[in-house]
């Protein structure tokens, strides 16, 4: 074993040892936990000063652990860069000189010293939840569109000069695609009726405008387009460039914000089109369009806004471009592609020279301020287990959901409440699958290791006495895992697609699909889908339901109702994308289809009168009395209702966006620009 391997082995052993140590104190001492905490401090809280101290401590304390120390130093250098502190150079040099065995870290440090990644002038100016922050052209405001728990849309306006937030209520309806006017005082946005429209209905969508202080809200276009996209307003604020989409066809429109007159500048038929912004003199408009309706390639065009000149290709066709825009001085068009930012010089609506790459890692382009400062963002998405208090009569949240899971874990699966409602169990991944039991009284987590192969473990509930977890794993069937002793007790072995225990713990329900060999291109034949109840005392099976499987398919979940009268089962039919949820009366009779949704991890309410399920990333309620389903305003999936009925546990995602700025983008980059090869981005 060479030195590098030994060090790696020691590091892995150290990590593995730490992971297996029970207790919160030891867990918080793990180097990866400390690194993550410092990262959260810098990226989520924006406190680089404290993060630098934390990284410094980690680098010192784990100096012998080269991987950890080098990572800490790299991140410390990034923090210095964000602060504009020249110390960053010394720290990168330290990585190179002290840890030459950490080749990736050294390469990264060299690259940054060479100036090919975040520049000296890159500063983080804001971070927060979401992924669609707008930066005002004067650099003063960050505007975020938010949907609250009551489904109401608001703009949250952060004034960076005073670090204060202001909320602008947008009223009933759904708001999308906000765009700030060049004077940094108004926001244009698309507005839809609350109910999603259907083409057969007489519905309308709008473009609205509102001042950042919430005054002056008005409609500037109301029509039956399926979509609008505003990405440009002239410097005088009078004319907006609008991408219009109707029934799959695309148009570029010029919308007067004064008279509300819409003039179509160019129709592009079925060529998907993204409209960019105006040149600063208002004479030209840049847009991206498919080469033709069958093509995967798109090109960037500049068109005269008075319709007097033929659209000119400024960036030839390629894959992966997104919305282009003029730079504030109008001398260039920039267009993101493959994570990088490309630029081409333009004059009189024509390109001058070849496209060049400005940045290889450009983040999400936010645009430019009037002085040429470039804004971009980085987005991080993580999922967690959440719990929220609800009003059981409406299932609307009473407060903001609370994250209960450790942010360093990944791969969360459905949560289950203990019978007394004091604990929550779920499966998560951190160096392998683990059972995690969260205790609400202490706020602590306990981990139970498992021997099951990663990804194969199914937690399906708690034993009625609350002492064990009910678990299903391939080959081992249904078993109990004692939460204290971790002893496992096999109860029954069956070959099933899905298994779940009855609420009294005396039986299991399971679904089987006896499938005939599938021949490509032919209809599957003679599959048999069965729902079975097995008595755990006697081992006797009772078939509850049988169907030829053609209308069924893969069983996704089984969920018995708390009153013991019904079994909800979800399955995915062949060649269908949306699972179906059926309800089977356990006293006998035929099942009925209740609903279809894109994400079904259903949960019964404690009174067995409704089912909670997820649809488009939101938790919905389907009453069983025939009423229409409705949204709760809780964003997440895999809900579970607490035994007292006033809390919902679920898996939710948090998205964090950090907005950065770079000054003097063009002078720095022009010297090392490279030519854009037609297939270069496609290969990435």
């Amino acid at each position, binding site marked *: 074993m060479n030195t590098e391997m030994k060090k790696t082995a020691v590091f892995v052993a150290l990590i593995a040892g730490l992971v297996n140590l029970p207790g919160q104190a030891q867990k918080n001492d793990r180097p990866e936990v400390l690194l993550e905490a410092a990262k959260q401090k810098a990226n989520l809280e924006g406190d680089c000063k404290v993060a630098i101290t934390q990284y410094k401590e980690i680098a010192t304390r784990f100096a012998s652990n080269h991987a950890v120390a080098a990572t800490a130093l790299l991140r410390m250098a990034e923090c210095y860069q964000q602060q504009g502190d020249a110390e960053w150079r010394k720290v990168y040099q330290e990585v190179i000189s002290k840890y030459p065995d950490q080749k990736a870290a050294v390469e990264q440090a060299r690259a940054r010293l060479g100036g090919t990644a975040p520049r000296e002038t890159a500063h983080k100016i804001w971070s927060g939840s979401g992924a669609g922050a707008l930066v005002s052209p004067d650099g003063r405001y960050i505007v975020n569109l938010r949907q609250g728990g009551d489904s109401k849309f608001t703009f949250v306006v952060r004034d960076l000069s005073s670090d204060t937030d202001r909320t602008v209520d947008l009223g009933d309806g759904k708001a999308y695609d906000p765009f700030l006017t060049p004077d940094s005082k108004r926001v244009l946005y698309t507005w839809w009726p609350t109910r999603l429209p259907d083409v057969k209905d007489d519905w309308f969508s709008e473009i609205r405008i509102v001042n950042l202080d919430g005054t002056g809200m008005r409609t500037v276009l109301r029509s039956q387009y399926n979509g609008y996209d505003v990405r440009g307003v*002239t410097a005088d604020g*009078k004319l907006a460039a609008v991408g219009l989409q109707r029934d799959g066809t695309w148009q570029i429109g010029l919308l007067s914000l004064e008279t*509300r007159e819409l003039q179509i500048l*160019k129709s592009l038929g079925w060529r998907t089109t993204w409209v960019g912004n105006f040149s600063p003199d208002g*004479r030209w408009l840049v847009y991206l369009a498919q080469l033709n309706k069958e093509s995967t390639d798109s090109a960037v065009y500049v068109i005269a806004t008075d319709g007097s000149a*033929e659209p000119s290709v400024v960036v030839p066709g390629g894959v992966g471009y997104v919305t282009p825009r003029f730079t504030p001085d109008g001398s260039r068009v920039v267009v993101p592609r493959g994570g990088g930012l490309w630029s081409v010089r333009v004059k009189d609506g024509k390109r001058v020279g070849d496209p060049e790459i400005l940045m290889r890692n450009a983040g999400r382009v936010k645009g430019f301020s009037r002085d040429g400062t470039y804004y971009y963002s980085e987005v991080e998405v993580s999922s967690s287990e959440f719990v929220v208090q609800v009003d059981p009569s409406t299932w609307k949240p009473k407060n903001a959901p609370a994250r209960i899971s450790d942010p360093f874990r990944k791969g969360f699966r459905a949560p289950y409440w203990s019978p007394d409602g004091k604990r929550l169990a779920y499966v998560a991944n951190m160096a392998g699958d683990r059972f995690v039991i969260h205790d609400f009284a202490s706020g602590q987590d306990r981990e139970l290791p498992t021997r099951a192969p990663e990804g194969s473990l199914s937690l399906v509930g708690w034993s009625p006495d609350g002492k064990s977890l009910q678990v299903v794993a391939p080959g081992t069937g249904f078993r109990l895992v004692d939460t204290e002793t971790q002893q496992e007790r096999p109860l029954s072995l069956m070959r099933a697609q899905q298994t779940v225990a009855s609420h009294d713990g005396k039986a299991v329900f399971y679904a089987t699909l006896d499938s005939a060999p599938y021949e490509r291109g032919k209809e599957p034949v003679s599959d048999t889908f069965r729902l079975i109840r097995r008595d755990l005392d006697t081992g006797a099976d009772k078939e509850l339901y049988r169907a030829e499987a053609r209308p069924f398919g893969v069983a996704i979940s089984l969920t018995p109702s708390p009153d013991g009268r019904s079994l909800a089962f979800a399955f995915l039919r062949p060649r269908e994308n949306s699972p179906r949820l059926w309800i089977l009366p356990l006293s006998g009779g035929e099942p009925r289809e209740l609903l279809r949704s894109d994400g079904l991890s259903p949960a019964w309410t404690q009174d067995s009168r409704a089912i909670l399920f997820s649809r488009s990333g939101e938790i919905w309620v389907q009453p069983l009395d025939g009423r229409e389903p409705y949204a709760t305003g809780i964003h997440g999936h895999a809900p579970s209702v607490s035994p007292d009925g006033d809390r919902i546990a679920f898996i939710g995602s948090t998205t964090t966006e950090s907005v950065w700025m770079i000054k003097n983008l063009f002078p720095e980059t022009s010297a090392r620009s490279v030519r854009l090869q037609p297939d270069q981005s496609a290969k990435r």
Partner: protein
Amino acid sequence: MRIAILCAAAVVLSAAAHAAGPRLPLGLDLYRPVPNDNRLTPAKIALGRRLFFDRRLSRDGSLSCAGCHDPKRALTDGRVVAQGVGGAMGNRNTPIIVNRAWGDGFFFDGRAATLEQLALQPFLNPAELGMSPESLLSVIQARYKRQFRSTFDAEPSLDLAARALASYLRTIVDGDSPYDRYAAGDLSALSESARRGFALFRGKAGCGQCHATPNLTDEEFHNTGVAWRTGTLIDEGRFAVTHAAADRGAFKTPTLREISRTAPYMHDGSFSTLADVVEYYDSGGQKNPTLDPKLRPLHLTAEEKRDILAFLGALEGRIQK
């Protein structure tokens, strides 16, 4: 900052002025495609207009382009098929010729790729104006020498005549219909019935699959089965140009602008009313080996058919010529 605002204001004013000259009717693209080698000039447009209306450019001096493309009939002739000099019968219905600047692939079979290619064909077609190239050039030389010199700084030629005619055709525009006003946000522009008809047009009836925004044509060719009679193909349509089997019996999607004024309908004028056309599409079209898969029985109710007709009536706008 002040300069930028002034510049932007000047541009907006300039754009307004551009629109105010030959201001296009509502609903049409501000950008009007014009070939680089035949830019629009007032002189060319005026010359083309004179050629368009000049009966002396037909074999017996009885007909001009406007003889079939009659401005009083929305630039069509009301006949089943076109009637040329000496009563000669064509084999296709006279198409409306509005908004052709934005089109491509002209005639029902698309045999002319540009308006310049199209412009002289009716003069030289024996079933239309019936001229020979020599006689046509001779008349033009005799009657238009001065205009060609002032317009093109050149002697008259068929090529230049085609350019002038194409320029004029590019200025025949039609828009500002109730539909256009509705699409631009005037929600009172359509009646309730027409609004329902528009929803059907876009949805259940599927008309918008081919009659797409903004000119209500996709400028493509479709076999709707009209050219088939009891299993026999009467007119090869696009196939005559491409010789592609899939194009047998396919014809250019016509614009629906002014449709209520341009009966009879289809490439052969075989339907005398719009109600007949709606009934035909409701039935799913005449079955044939290359029927466009977009056609299928629609199962429209009587009320839905009335609503579609109400919407089609709202496509009557303002023709500038």
